[in-house]
């Protein structure tokens, strides 16, 4: 909307210098017209003076109005022939309107009807061609203005879009590197170092693999479900280092689905959500069930976790899950792929991945 009003601003009236320059150029043309008509029609200078004054008041105003005509009738047609015919027609009409309107107005300043008609006859050709000329000059000028303004807004929009994308990328990067997860994991690993150096070593490798997977893949890629589940499994194993006694993961995977493709990192937020509302909030043991089924139309993945109802935080309104919904909509153009089933103490997120992608 802002860009639109920017374009709408009149290129001549938008500042005083442009208006002054316009008036100056107009008076130069006026002066030539005056000299020309004085030469053609050599009797009585009062009628010439009146005609010059009226004509240029009219054309001055018509030129200003022409902007709106050109602005609202920006031709989208690429047909050059049609464009030329159209422009010629408009220029003739423009020039005629000028001639007729200024002649009618001149009538009020004339006593002698005969002189008036002779004057019109003699000056018609000159005036008509000057009208055409002015039309083409103005048309050219206005079109240059429109094109340059459009370019400017295009550049601005592109800049805005790219900064938006960068922000988005930064946000997703920040979201991936959940600081609580990272620093708590490192802290637990540092504890393992004293207890069991081999376990600590393995834990560091797992954490590295996890972050490598998260960081190297770009958001619009697809990956095999077994890769994606592999990463989820890694994630759970790292959380298990932090909560060795507190979590149990059950996998129920139909291995015929191993190679089907799903959007990269789409399962990660669900896995995190299950841990966040289960393991992090529970005192008792948390169980997470992961199911992958090969249905007729879909591959269906479900994550189910238990939660203790006493925790007052609302479960299931996480931004992570909302983002998945958004991504699914963008990728598959469908709104019904993610569903949430909530009971007193279980929470389940289910995603249907369509087998046929358009």
């Amino acid at each position, binding site marked *: 909307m802002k860009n639109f009003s920017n374009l709408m601003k009149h290129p001549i009236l938008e500042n005083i210098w442009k208006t002054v320059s316009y008036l100056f150029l107009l008076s130069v043309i006026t002066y030539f017209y005056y000299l020309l008509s004085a030469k053609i029609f050599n009797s009585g200078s009062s009628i010439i003076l009146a005609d010059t004054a009226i004509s240029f008041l009219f054309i001055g105003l018509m030129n200003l109005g022409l902007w709106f005509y050109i602005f609202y009738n920006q031709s989208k047609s690429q047909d050059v022939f049609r464009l030329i015919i159209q422009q010629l027609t408009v220029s003739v009409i423009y020039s005629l309107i000028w001639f007729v309107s200024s002649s009618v107005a001149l009538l009020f300043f004339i006593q002698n009807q005969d002189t008036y008609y002779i004057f019109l006859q003699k000056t018609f050709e000159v005036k008509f061609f000057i009208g055409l000329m002015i039309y083409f000059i103005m048309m050219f000028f206005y079109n240059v203005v429109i094109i340059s303004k459009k370019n400017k807004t295009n550049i601005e929009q592109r800049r805005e879009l790219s900064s938006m994308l960068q922000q988005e990328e930064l946000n997703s990067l920040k979201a991936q590197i959940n600081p*609580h997860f990272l620093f708590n994991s490192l*802290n*637990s690993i540092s*504890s393992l170092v*004293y207890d069991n150096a081999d376990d600590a070593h393995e834990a560091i490798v797992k954490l590295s693999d996890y972050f490598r997977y998260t960081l190297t893949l770009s958001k619009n890629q697809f990956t095999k479900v077994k890769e994606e589940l592999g990463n989820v499994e890694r994630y759970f194993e790292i959380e298990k280092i*932090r909560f060795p006694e507190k979590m149990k993961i059950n996998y129920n995977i139909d291995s015929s689905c191993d190679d089907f493709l799903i959007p990269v990192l789409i399962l990660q937020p669900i896995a995190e959500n299950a841990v966040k509302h289960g393991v992090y909030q529970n005192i008792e043991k948390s169980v997470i069930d992961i199911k992958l089924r090969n249905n007729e139309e879909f591959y269906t993945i479900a994550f189910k976790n238990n939660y203790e109802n*006493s925790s007052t935080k609302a479960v299931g309104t996480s931004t992570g899950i909302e983002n998945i919904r958004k991504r699914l909509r963008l990728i598959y153009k469908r709104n019904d792929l993610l569903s949430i089933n909530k009971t007193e103490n279980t929470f389940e997120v289910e995603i249907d991945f369509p087998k046929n992608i358009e």
Partner: protein
Amino acid sequence: MESAKIKVIIVDDEEPARKLIANFLKENPDFEIIDECADGFSAVKKINELQPDLVFLDIQMPKLTGMEVLELLDNIPLIVFVTAYDEFAVKAFELNAIDYLLKPYSKKRFAETLEKVKDKFHKKIIPSEKYDNLKKSINHKKNTERIAVKNRSKIEVIPVEQIMLFEAQDDYVQIYSNKSKYLKKMTMKYLEAHLNKEIFVRVHRSYIVNINFIERIEKAEKESNYIIMKNNIVAKASKSGYNLLKGKLDL
């Protein structure tokens, strides 16, 4: 000359994190671990029961956060806060010169913290004033979502939407939920600043009401009004408080 050992309770929901502290403490004969807790509820219970000299207190925990634990303690011992990532809390610790550890921490940093704590212990400094300041400054969240209270020996966490009324009683506030009532040491000023202003209105010096639980309003003497809440609990409204309430209720 050294008197008894410093009694420690370690509170963290992650077992390896507790183990690490225990490992480091073992190397220092001045400290004795008397218990470990994995959640906020048991932490409050154990600390009130065993009265340790020092608590290592993790901030992010199930049920109650470390800060909520702090609010529910009868006598506050020396505390070393432990957190992985919490900018607001760390700022508040710095501001109030309160001991804390950022996970993961070095052995050196841990030893330095122990020295500071030992020093305070022997000088018998319990910085309770600092903890009070911390409690006030830590609630960076504009709208408090829940309030932790102690009901005899039981701890409850009440979502604020379930609270009908707050009534000032000296240093305490009487909290009326739709099920029961509780007493907690806090101030009306604090509540007014941290409760969601869309549903909570301070109608009187001593009353904050939840507008969703108002049954009716009755004229009292002079310029004051009675606000009758659900379960027939009555609050008083001053003239200005009544006007404030009228604005919220679009009367």
